């Protein structure tokens, strides 16, 4: 999230698209409603279903799942045609003025794809910028040059007329125009608009480009960096922001440092490759500091046990261009490429796309460790539906861990706010905190390598682990020590020049906490487990995420003394773009930062140099400006509408290219497995005629791995259902409460029918298309009718039904490989009806 939850109250127009906060982030509605009550803000909700959020919106429009880019592309055209954009903002703070290689071809003139496509992969040489002899990007401040980004944007989206958009999305033209007009009204300096999105945008083959399209709109309207603006990624887990920051993902290392790859054999080569360079005179290019963060990270692994060069050398490297993400893991597992598997605090038997493939894959393992609070479909996969335990070789350890209130530590919410939690009670029985469990396993593995040796053993034996002490039989993990490690230390006595005051020096002693990441060093004299968290622990005030000061000096809800947010306690990132190039807030009534003559006051300034000095504020971009044109992505520098892989139409009405050309198809020869089957790809498949989407309800969380075991919640939402529009239900002879079977090319799941006017049929280019929806919180472990062994835990309130992900295809976004759970094809019939 660029801004934070409380900041919703500062918005004038709140666009809810790709999410349903009233159901899934219910308390956020306090701040949405505050905006309505205090500033007469308007709420727009765009969703295939009339959701709880829609019921509270001033303006609702339906759209067919998977057509968001068409919808938003039409909005870009409307904003450009009606000159609703914030011209000064885009001229100074975006790459609108940049001139692009004249060889670039765009989808409208190139059969639906950008130039450079070969075998599902783009060569991007034609996507480059024009540069002068010195390598500086050529620009046209008037934004008239036909090759400038602004003109290319106009040209690209000129095809997205309301009529075409309406035929694709099923949204009536008058609704489109009403929404475009209202949201476009936030392009004025004294108006702010925000979009709230969640998995409704990410879980598509065009997921990243969905968000890019909105980012373009926000840039055009000058809504980034301001109070009440931004793009709000409302994340689905309490600490998924933090777990991403700490890189529990294959492609990054903590603090968003790109993971080392095989073609970069030395630390020097890695730093050289990963550190961006720029020829733009005024750009700060913050990532030029990359080597300070990478060196400090390596020190947090091995301390002074080896040089940073050696630490880099012994740590693992990816093959260049290879993908090790979720869908690949379960594909490789199914093909017996792994012997061991940790499913730690996760339930992939219900959460992964194509759960049957995930469940089958686990039968191919030699061993699996599952750490959780309750028995679950993953730990017990070997006795699930259709499994014969006598034939399954997998050795399984199901380890009981402490709940959040049974240990201490911190989590980071969507607003990057790191808050500390305290231990209230002991865990039940012998359950242990995750930190204790992983420490014990680490020490045992380390001991084995010390005794018996093994390949590259120093990578394990030299890891530092000063994270607690033995207490009785077990190692007691101390999160406060780890919080300090993440912040970072000086590892030697050192005199360092103040990064913000040339000529002023400060002496540090070995063991001193590093004050902020600006003080981190590239020479191995500092450590930091995640540079963006550097500054969260201080010698005098301790762990800042523990703070509870509710003062709000700006009145904008920044509350700078409540906990701590990364980076450097900044509450609204990119806030340097909330002031004009002379340093005056675009909207003085909502000033995030302002210059008082000698310094910036308000929020911690981001990218704002001294006023009038011409520093562009988007300092995390090498060229200093926000990217209307984004040549870094796998599937195009501008978002283009492509149909979901499984979709109800024969062709893309905008071009001859039906699906995203850069996605990885697991059904292709030699890629996936026999289980990777899709329907409705080349033509409509009568077996699966309905669009299907998955979603959540307030009362459950994720796969229900915790909430299904809580009787209050299970009573309120006791089982799997399918929402079916009134017309479709009539057509299929289904009544409210009937047991139904919902099926896709991959599996089926039993659901209770909820016949509802919340889903209305779509008119898609003259054809009636129905959409249905299912929640994904259920699983067989808490059902009544499954076999129970003596000693098994039994839910106090049973639920019914299994996982919605049994139906979801193994197809991912072209950039992230996040599965397309939000738009696939399915059928629904009354149970017993063929």
């Amino acid at each position, binding site marked *: 999230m660029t801004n934070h939850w*409380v900041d919703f109250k500062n918005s004038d127009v709140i666009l809810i698209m790709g999410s349903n906060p009233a159901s899934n982030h219910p*308390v956020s509605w306090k701040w949405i409603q505050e905006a309505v009550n205090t500033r007469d803000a308007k709420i727009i909700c765009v969703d295939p279903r009339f959701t709880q959020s829609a019921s509270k919106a001033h303006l609702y429009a339906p759209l067919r799942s998977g057509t968001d880019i068409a919808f938003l592309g039409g909005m870009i055209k409307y904003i450009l045609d009606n000159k609703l954009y914030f011209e000064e903002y885009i001229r100074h703070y975006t790459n609108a003025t940049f001139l692009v290689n004249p060889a670039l071809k765009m989808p409208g003139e190139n059969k639906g794809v950008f130039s450079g496509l070969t075998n599902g992969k783009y060569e991007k040489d034609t996507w480059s910028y024009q540069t002068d002899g010195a390598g500086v990007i050529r620009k046209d401040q008037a934004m008239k040059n036909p090759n400038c980004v602004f003109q290319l944007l106009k040209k690209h989206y000129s095809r997205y007329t309301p009529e075409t958009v309406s035929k694709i999305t099923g949204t009536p033209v008058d609704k489109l125009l009403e929404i475009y007009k209202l949201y476009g009204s936030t392009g004025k300096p004294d108006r702010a608009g925000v979009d709230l999105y969640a998995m409704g945008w990410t879980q598509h083959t065009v997921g990243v480009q969905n968000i890019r399209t909105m980012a373009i709109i926000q840039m055009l309207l000058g809504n980034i960096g301001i109070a009440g603006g931004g793009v709000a990624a409302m994340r689905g887990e309490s600490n*998924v922001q*933090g777990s991403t920051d*700490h890189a*529990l993902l*294959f492609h990054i290392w*903590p603090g968003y440092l790109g993971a080392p790859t095989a073609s970069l054999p030395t630390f020097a080569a890695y730093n050289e490759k990963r550190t961006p360079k720029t020829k733009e005179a005024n750009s700060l290019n913050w990532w030029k500091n990359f080597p300070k963060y990478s060196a400090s990270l390596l020190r947090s692994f091995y301390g002074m046990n080896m040089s940073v060069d050696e630490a880099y050398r012994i*740590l*693992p*490297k*990816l*093959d260049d261009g290879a993908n090790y993400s*979720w869908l690949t*893991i379960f594909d*490789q597992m199914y093909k017996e490429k*792994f012997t061991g598997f*940790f*499913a*730690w*605090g*996760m339930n992939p038997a219900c*959460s992964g796309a194509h759960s049957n493939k995930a469940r089958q894959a686990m039968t191919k393992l030699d061993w699996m460790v599952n750490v959780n*609070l309750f*028995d679950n479909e993953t730990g*017990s996969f070997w006795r699930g539906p259709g499994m014969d335990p006598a034939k*399954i070789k*997998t050795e*399984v350890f*199901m*380890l009981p861990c402490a*709940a959040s*209130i*049974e240990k201490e*530590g*911190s*989590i980071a919410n969507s607003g990057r706010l790191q*808050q500390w*939690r305290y231990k209230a009670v002991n865990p*039940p029985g012998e359950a242990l905190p*995750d*930190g204790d469990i992983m420490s014990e*396993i*680490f020490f045992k593995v380390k001991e*084995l390598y010390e005794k*018996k040796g*093994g390949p*590259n053993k120093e990578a394990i034996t030299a*890891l530092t682990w000063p994270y607690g002490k033995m207490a009785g*039989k077990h190692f007691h993990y101390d999160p406060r020590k780890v919080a300090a490690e993440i912040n970072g230390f000086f590892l030697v006595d050192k005199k360092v020049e103040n990064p913000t005051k040339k000529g002023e020096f400060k002496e540090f002693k070995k063991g001193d906490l590093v004050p902020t990441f600006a003080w981190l060093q590239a020479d191995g004299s500092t450590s930091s487990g995640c540079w963006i968290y550097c500054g969260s622990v201080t010698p005098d005030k301790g762990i800042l995420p523990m703070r509870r000061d*509710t003062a709000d000096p700006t009145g904008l809800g920044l509350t700078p003394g409540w906990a701590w947010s990364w980076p450097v306690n900044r509450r609204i990132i990119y806030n340097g773009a909330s002031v004009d190039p002379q340093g005056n807030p675009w909207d003085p009534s909502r000033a995030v930062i302002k210059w008082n003559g000698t310094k910036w006051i308000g929020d911690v300034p981001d990218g704002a140099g001294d006023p009038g000095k011409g520093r562009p504020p988007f300092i995390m971009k090498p060229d200093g400006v926000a990217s209307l044109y984004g040549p870094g992505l796998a599937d195009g520098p501008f978002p283009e509408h492509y149909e979901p892989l499984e979709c109800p139409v024969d062709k893309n009405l905008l071009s001859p290219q039906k699906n995203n050309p850069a996605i990885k198809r697991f059904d292709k020869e030699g890629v996936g497995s026999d289980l990777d089957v899709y329907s409705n790809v080349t033509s409509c498949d009568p077996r699966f005629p309905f669009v299907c989407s998955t979603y959540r309800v*307030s009362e459950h969380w994720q796969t229900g791995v915790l909430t299904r*075991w809580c*009787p209050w*919640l299970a009573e309120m939402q006791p089982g799997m259902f399918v929402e079916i529009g009134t017309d479709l239900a009539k057509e299929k002879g289904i009544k409210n409460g009937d047991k139904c079977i919902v099926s896709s090319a991959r599996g089926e799941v039993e659901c209770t029918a909820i016949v509802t006017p919340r889903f209305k049929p779509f008119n898609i280019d003259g054809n009636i298309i129905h959409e249905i929806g299912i929640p994904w919180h259920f699983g067989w472990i808490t059902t009544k009718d499954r076999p129970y*062994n003596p000693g098994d835990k*039994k*839910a*106090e309130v049973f639920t019914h039904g299994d996982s919605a992900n049994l139906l979801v295809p193994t197809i991912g976004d072209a950039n992230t490989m996040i*599965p397309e759970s939000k738009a696939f094809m399915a059928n629904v019939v009354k149970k017993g009806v063929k």
Partner: protein
Amino acid sequence: MNVSRRGFLKLSGAVAAVSGLGISLTPAAAHAKELKIKYAKETTTVCPYCSVGCSIIVSVRDGKVINTEGDPDSPINRGSLCSKGGSIYQMAVNENRLGKPLYRAPFATEWKEVEWEWAFEKIAENVKKSRDASFKKTNAKGELVNRTEGIASVGSAAMDLEECFTYQKFLRGLGLVYIEHQARI
């Protein structure tokens, strides 16, 4: 007193019946209210479910959670909680929580309770065996990769920040590259 939801409903039913007889229960209700968190120790926590980050006050007496409620001091939730946040009590007070490590041997049809020490040792041996058998010093091109290809990990956004850091350090120290979690799905 250990009152389950069902028990509570029965009690409430009884109260309703008594009220129907015209007996005033007001003093008893006031008394109960006063007692609810008396002598309890309060700690604060943050909701483990969605990512809003609502603060919650946990009241503990005699080592047991007796009440959880929204923390009015939090500038984010100002005391409010949703249905899930309001049920944190049941995460701790729940007889279905796992309290003992469980082990399922190959081809076994049931779980067996085991000791932690035994489980840790066996897991460590498995890790070493899988790692040693699948460790690749170089890839097909002969480039140095130092990775363990035979073990994968998923998880977890359900852990604390500090645990996430420590866990990835452990996994990368082992040489794993197949490291993923909730953020990808």
